């Protein structure tokens, strides 16, 4: 069969994968549910995908069509909805050209397009199986071609719709539209064929049908010439057909003219027919014998009729033969159109992954958790730290409470210093800073190592590439150099080195700051004893009750600062627990369970539906935002009051301080400043630590990119080496049975090939 004057589209070849196993891995890696919950679905899918990979040209039936439709439904209704689009890499080899090329893409959409392609190919093959000698057969055949055409139109629409994805080049419009029109042309040709069998149909009608066939072929050629995937013999076939049916159309019109005794017109049409037949012959190279036979037949008839007609006209009718442009134009009569099968809208045969929470939920939950952490950090932690720092600075700048402590409390360690000492000790004292400095140094080393590792991957590729380039010669080794191929990665790595340099200089500034206050910190962590010996006593002089009242008022205000800071500390701790216990995932799952369809039908990029949940979720923190605002207002008010009270105090305390008081005040002030610096250094160090951690996270992604790059380059160089080392072969047969597995999986010399026999030694 199929050895006739029409074309069928060869099936693509699917790279075999264990789809169930791969999906299982994806579930285990990315979801919160175990893959064994879905083992039945996974086995099912493995089987279905295996069946699809086994499809062979020509040996097809309706069973395979149902299989494909079912698989397409599974892809659209379950896999695309429950999994990230790039979960699995699919490979498809294209058999349209002589050159076997495999395209790989991590996309369910890619898998879908290929399977629709398979359907289109199957329809084209089934169409050719129908009898071309019966009306019934022709009718069916015509329908199948139109269904096939519908598949390609569907592909074209989908490719337009998924315009952000770079599918393989065989899905570019020129190829797909060429195939679509080819199928329409053949469908129309089938109609034409059927019309020929019906003797009651007038020549004028057949002429119009024929013209339409030619027009479809014309479009097919037009797109085909732009495509790398439509081979020359097909283009020739299409060209022959295009001119053949144009010629045939004129031939029929010449009959019409003859019937109405327009002998000049008859001759004109026959001349055109003859001209197009000649044009058709110009493309006969590589074209199937059946097609050429048809053309020969037409040519003979046309030539004979033309000779007779010209003679008759010259001798008998003496009619003027009109020019081509003066001939009455006819319209092509298209009886076909792409048919979009209802089966694309089939209900799924069963529900797959029913209990699987869609990836979009898992993903959104993760993203929102991160967002929430950021939110808590930027809306609460950071503002409170800076408010506290401002407050401490405000107080220290006014020499408080050192100024009143040195007057009122000539002995003992003032409360604020004891508190600072306690807090410093609680936080971890000097060791804390030294520990974080060391940790940051280690992190910095780790970051440097990571960048080195990234660099090493690129370097490996560069060395290997150089070696092979030398071995194979620059002319033959014609792939891009490392510098070119890894341009983006090399740029990223350079940037990373720059960031690390900047961080390093930041670190050394903090270290300097730390060494400046280290001796004061030693006093703090030495406890009561070292504080007592550091802070000198001053001489006591009793205070005027009025001054005492002012001091007490000032003290009261200062103690409100402590209260405020403690309140904030408790607030932050509680907030941390609140945030942890307030996970958004259950809310998202709830939303999903309430309306799974809505979520399932979501476009993966359109997650705005969840934004609302997030916004509502964050509303539970409104009360905390209110607190923070109030706390801020309290601080401003407190600062104002302290400022006024302190001015009052300074005005009223006229007595000159004796030297002991000044000494005591100075040492207290030194300690106060050291405390503020201590807090500042810790917050600086934490920022540094955060920077390095973020760097590691991002750096690991770059490392992964570098690893992927190296892997890809190695595969590429293997393939290239193999192709350079094997002598060029004449064009390969494209019969499906003989297709070799994709090259990249073929190990090279030295490594044992499990597909070959075993030879040890």
């Amino acid at each position: 069969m199929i050895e006739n004057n029409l074309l069928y589209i060869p099936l693509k070849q699917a790279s075999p994968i264990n789809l169930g196993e791969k999906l299982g891995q994806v579930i285990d890696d990315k979801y919160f549910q175990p893959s064994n919950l879905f083992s039945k679905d996974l086995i099912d899918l493995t089987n279905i995908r295996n069946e699809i990979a086994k499809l062979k040209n020509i040996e097809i039936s309706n069973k395979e069509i149902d299989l494909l439709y079912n698989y397409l439904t599974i892809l659209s209704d379950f896999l695309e909805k429950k999994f990230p689009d790039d979960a699995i890499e699919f490979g498809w080899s294209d058999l349209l050209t002589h050159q076997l090329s495999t395209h790989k893409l991590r996309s369910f959409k890619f898998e879908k397009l290929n399977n629709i392609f398979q359907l289109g190919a199957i329809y084209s093959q089934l169409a050719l199986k129908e009898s071309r000698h019966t009306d019934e057969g022709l009718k069916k055949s015509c329908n199948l071609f139109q269904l096939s055409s519908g598949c390609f139109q569907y592909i074209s629409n989908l490719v337009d719709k998924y315009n952000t994805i770079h599918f393989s080049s065989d899905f570019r419009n020129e190829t797909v539209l060429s195939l679509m029109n080819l199928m329409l042309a053949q469908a129309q040709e089938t109609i034409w064929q059927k019309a020929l069998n019906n003797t009651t149909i007038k020549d004028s009608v057949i002429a119009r049908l024929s013209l339409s066939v030619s027009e479809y072929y014309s479009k097919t050629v037009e797109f085909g010439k732009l495509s790398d995937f439509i081979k020359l013999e097909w283009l020739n076939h299409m060209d022959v057909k295009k001119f053949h049916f144009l010629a045939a159309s004129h031939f029929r019109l010449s009959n019409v003219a003859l019937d109405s005794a327009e002998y000049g017109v008859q001759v004109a049409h026959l001349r055109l027919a003859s001209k197009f037949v000649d044009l058709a012959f110009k493309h006969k190279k590589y074209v199937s014998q059946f097609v050429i036979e048809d053309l020969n037949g037409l040519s003979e008839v046309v030539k004979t009729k033309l000779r007779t007609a010209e003679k008759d006209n010259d001798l008998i009718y003496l009619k003027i033969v009109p020019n081509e442009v003066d001939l009455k134009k006819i319209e092509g009569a298209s009886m076909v159109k792409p048919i979009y099968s209802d089966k694309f809208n089939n209900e799924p045969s069963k529900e797959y992954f029913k209990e699987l929470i869609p990836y979009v939920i898992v993903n959104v939950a993760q993203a929102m958790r991160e967002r929430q952490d950021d939110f808590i950090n930027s809306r609460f932690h950071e503002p409170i730290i800076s408010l506290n720092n401002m407050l401490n600075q405000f107080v220290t700048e006014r020499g408080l409470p050192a100024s009143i402590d040195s007057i009122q409390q000539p002995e003992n360690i003032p409360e604020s210093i004891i508190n600072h000492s306690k807090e410093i000790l609680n936080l971890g004292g000097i060791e804390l800073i030294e520990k974080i400095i060391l940790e940051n140094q280690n992190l910095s080393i780790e970051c440097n190592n990571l960048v080195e590792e990234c660099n090493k991957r690129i370097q490996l590729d560069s060395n290997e590439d150089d070696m092979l380039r030398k071995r194979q010669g620059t002319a033959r080794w014609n792939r891009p150099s490392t510098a070119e191929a890894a341009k983006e990665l090399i740029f990223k790595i350079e940037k990373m080195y720059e960031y690390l340099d900047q961080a390093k200089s930041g670190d050394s500034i903090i270290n300097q700051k730390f060494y400046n206050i280290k001796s004061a910190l030693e006093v703090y962590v030495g406890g009561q004893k070292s504080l007592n010996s550091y802070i000198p006593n001053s001489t006591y002089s009793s205070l005027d009750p009025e001054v005492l009242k002012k001091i007490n008022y000032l003290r009261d205000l200062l103690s409100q600062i402590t209260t405020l800071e403690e309140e904030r500390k408790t607030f932050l701790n509680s907030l941390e627990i609140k945030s942890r216990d307030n996970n958004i995932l259950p809310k998202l799952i709830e939303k999903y369970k309430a309306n799974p369809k809505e979520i399932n039908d979501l476009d993966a990029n359109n997650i705005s539906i969840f934004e609302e949940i997030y916004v509502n979720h964050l509303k539970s923190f409104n009360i905390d935002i209110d607190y923070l605002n109030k706390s801020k207002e309290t601080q401003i008010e407190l600062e104002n009051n302290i400022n006024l009270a302190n001015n009052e105090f300074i005005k009223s305390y006229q007595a000159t301080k004796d030297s002991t008081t000044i000494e005591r005040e100075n040492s207290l002030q030194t300690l106060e400043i050291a405390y503020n610096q201590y807090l500042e250094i810790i917050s600086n160090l934490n920022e540094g630590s955060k920077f390095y951690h973020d760097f590691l996270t991002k750096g690991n992604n770059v490392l992964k990119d570098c690893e992927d790059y190296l892997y890809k380059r190695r595969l590429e160089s293997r393939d290239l080496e193999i192709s350079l080392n094997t002598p060029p072969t004449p064009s390969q047969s494209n019969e499906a049975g003989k297709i070799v597995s994709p090259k990249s999986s073929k190990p090279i010399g030295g490594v044992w090939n499990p597909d070959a026999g075993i030879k040890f030694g």
Partner: protein
Amino acid sequence: MNQFLNYIDETFINLSIDNNQQAKNNCLKAIKLLNGLVKDTKYLKCLSEFTLKLYKLKLSTSEKLAWLSSKNYHPIVDFGEVTSHNEIFIGSVNDEMMPMPDLPIDYKPINIDSWDTDLKDIYQDILPNCSFVSSFLALNDKFRLIDLITPHHPSSSFFVKLNFNGGERIVKIDNKLPIIKDSMRNLIIKSLSSDIYWPALIEKAYLKVMGNSYKFEGSNMANDTYMLSGYIPEIIQIKNGLLDLPYLKSVDAVLGIGTRKLSSQLASQLNLISEHDYVIEKFNDDGSIDIKNPWSIDNRTNTIHDFTHFRFIYINWKKTLPFKTHFINTSTQFKVKGWILLEKHLPVENNWMSITIYDSKFKVLTENEYKKINYIDTNNRLQLIKLPKTCTIKINSNQNGIFTLSSGYEIEKSKYEYRHTSELSGEWNSQTNGGNWSMSTYIDNPQYKMEVKEPTNLKIALHSKGLVNLHLFHGGGKIETFTKPIINENYNQDYQLGTFQLSKGSYTLVVSRYDKSIESFRLIFNSSSEINIFKHSNYLGLFNKTVEFDWDNKNRYKYVFTLTDPTSIKFRINYFNLNNSFEIHSNYRPGLRASLFKDKQPILINKEFNDSLFGIFLTCDLSPGAYILLVERFEIGYGSCKIFIGSNKKIK
């Protein structure tokens, strides 16, 4: 009757140590004693009835602890019509010589016939117990101190009732008191105006209980007032000389105030004594207070305007906390509300306690599980805690001992949120210190299989030292790679908490440290339904063997082995960069694959190369024969490789 009381006390102690036979014997002896008395002896009926029921009494752990807490000072027994703090039970007490300061002292019996209760002129002299004397002064018009002692007539022995170690206890003393020879100075509490000695007897009982006797080292007024009156003690630190005077004025309590350490110069300038407790006598309208010095000096009362030089306010609330529980274990957790008083039993030395208050009705698994409402730490042996609502409190102390918690409400031991709790301990040893998941040894960490039979809420707490973490995976089998765990928190210092809602199925728990150090750990599982937990073996198989080789610029290696018995075998193959004992995830690793042949026929074929950080695994059941394990790497290169082999039979 004194012997009768001894038998009764013995019985309680025997019951407390679960020696029921001895308890019964003591009861019988007590009954015998009663039977020997004449019929119309006072209280005979109630004492007999009490004793008959006594040996059958079941004491709670808490009650047992009350009896075991201080052997010499028994809790007061309530017989119904009479308590053991009654003169009928007094026998002869002969105190051994109490330790005395280095002074010419005459320690002699005093015949006490003045039972005057006017104590306004009572004062402290040589003995540094300002707190006790201040308490006495402060309680004078608020509490019948004289009722602490019995009898109120001359006697050679007395019973003194004091409030300590979880309740009222009897301190038995004789009538000897230390008198300094040929001196007007006193070692005992004295009154200026009258010749009363009974306060000195109470003081003696107090000193006996406190441990150092007349070589007294000091206390504080709140504690002492509590010992005398049972009024709930609260100590407030004065910060920056700030006092909430209106509040203090309004409380129904006994009030005192203590100074800071002051140099003698400053002390005399201020007319205050360094580290001294005073009674607060009066709040004046101008914001000053009148305080009374326990010393007998010319001007015992001071008016204070500036409180900078004071450190503590002592408040003893006239309230009672009737519900009590006694316990030993620190880090015990209780569910409590309202006011509670924590007491560490005497004797105490360098004691320190901390109380953490959580906003939870449930027992706390880890520090960060619930919101902390408050954290108190103190070196005082008594601590009042005021709770805004029902909370869980966790008590820690640097010293073991017996503690009492008193409350206005029933005290419950906290329970974990869910019904089922199990605990297990383990360690990261030199084989299982796998480190964090970025190390190739992560999967060597202790692993547990958990079987969940129905949907379950589960909390897992991990306690150890250093940065630790726990990961839960679906499956239940030993994990061989790091797939997505059910939750993934950062490594946390000293503990980690995991909260899960699990469906029916099997799970694998891995506990790990951030670094590879050696340490022990404890796991607590608390779940709403029962779960079974099994530990996975740390070994690949029953028999274990390691083969190591260098790649040496090759890409394949053949390991030949022979089996004489049918054998189940598992291979783990890891790549190592030279000199590394483990790899971290950013290190370069070539892809590896391994296949198995028997008699040159393939048994198990792997086509794919895999560069898993944790190595590649091969499991098979093999019949006897000669085998080749072919290990290959993606590209030729250097570095080494280890093949770990575990099997159920020995491999030759």
